[in-house]
């Protein structure tokens, strides 16, 4: 029987209350939302927080909406809601690409977008996606909200920029015209963690003579190890160039690989951890 070690349980009634609880209990307190990463780790004693602060009543942290030129995804948004969001899929198909391969439908009913990102598991799916999309994390602390670009959000496996007395509020994805995006994951079983994964996004703009040229490109992979959670910057290699097959995110689907997935998975998809433009 797998049961977590003893801990205290508090249910936050507001964002401010959650931050106050985290401040009061100190670094041995953890927030819990879906709990589908944290509770299994607590059962295995890989995590042993003294206090859990339950965020599930904070409905203001859930939901997907467009505000200004940003797609805003609340941290408490369940995976199933992001997968079912037409507006998210319309702007960035990569969000549905990734959500479709996260665990299974029942787990996706409970697990949250913010929880996945904050867990920063080395095999996690959404970290690379939001990095590729150049998203910004909004983090709430006692002094108010602050914004951290996803490139600086992951400091290593299971480590993020969110402080002990802070809560991830939402992820903001800039909406820009001419964008395309995709996510490819190599896994061995349905709903499994990734053996390897790559996320890519590309934005085009009209160039000389009307030929589209690459305005910007982003790539991302899971936060695997210190120093490797930041993918190479494809922008410098393909910006202002016309999009060709060798410069497109689809390149990530080509069989060239440095990640070396097993032969059994090569038939499904093969990804490279390197820049899609390299």
């Amino acid at each position, binding site marked *: 029987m797998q*049961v977590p*070690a003893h*801990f205290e349980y508090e*249910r936050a009634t507001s964002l401010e209350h959650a931050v106050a609880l985290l401040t009061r209990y100190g670094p041995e307190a953890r927030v819990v939302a879906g709990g*589908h990463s944290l*509770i299994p780790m607590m059962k295995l004693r890989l995590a042993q927080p003294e206090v*859990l602060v*339950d965020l599930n009543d904070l409905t203001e942290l859930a939901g997907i909406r467009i505000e200004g030129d940003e797609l805003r995804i609340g941290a408490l948004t369940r995976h199933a809601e992001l997968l079912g969001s037409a507006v998210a899929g319309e702007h960035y198909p990569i969000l549905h690409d990734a959500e479709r391969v996260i665990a299974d439908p029942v787990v996706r*009913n*409970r697990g949250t977008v913010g929880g996945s990102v904050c867990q920063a598991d080395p095999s996690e799916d959404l970290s690379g996606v939001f990095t590729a999309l150049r998203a910004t994390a909004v983090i709430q602390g006692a002094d108010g909200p602050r914004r951290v670009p996803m490139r600086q959000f992951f400091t290593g496996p299971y480590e993020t920029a969110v402080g002990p007395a802070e809560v991830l509020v939402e992820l903001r994805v800039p909406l820009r015209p001419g964008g395309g995006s995709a996510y490819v994951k190599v896994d061995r079983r349905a709903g499994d963690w990734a053996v390897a994964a790559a996320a890519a996004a590309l934005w085009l703009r009209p160039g000389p003579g009307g030929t589209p040229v690459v305005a910007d490109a982003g790539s991302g992979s899971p936060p695997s190890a210190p120093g490797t959670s930041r993918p190479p910057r494809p922008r410098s290699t393909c910006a202002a160039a016309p999009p060709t097959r060798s410069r497109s995110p689809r390149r990530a689907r080509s069989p060239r690989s440095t990640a070396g997935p097993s032969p059994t998975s090569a038939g499904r998809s093969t990804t490279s951890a390197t820049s899609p433009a390299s």
Partner: protein
Amino acid sequence: MAVTVNGVEHVREVEPRLLLVHLLRDELGLTGTHWGCDTSNCGACTVWMDGVPVKSCTVLAAMAHGREVRTVEGLETPFGLDQVQVSFMACHGLQCGFCTPGMLMTARWLLDRNPDPSEAEVREAIAGQTCRCTGYENIVRAVRHAAAAEREQAS
């Protein structure tokens, strides 16, 4: 904590670390919900919380405070078994029966949202439920059988 299970409110004092599956089985005696892999993989412990299927081995009992839980015992009505239960019997959608409570809860949820699911849609819906007896063939058949029966009843 206070939780409503199958329409009945229960008040209990629980340890924060108690899991919902153990509250249901050990405290409330609702052993229809099965306790399987303990890692949110197998889906045998699937129940509804506030109308949505969740794996109760990965939900704290305290998280269910103030919420409505529906277990496999809550499928049957005074008028008889739910159609998914009838169809699982008719189509032999089980052998040992261990995965069945979770399968039934997910199947009921699927049919409430999609009254005519394709085979692929049924297989996707139960992707988080593991069955080691049937090879899933009869389970998929049972869910679609239930769907067809309910569509017929509705027409």
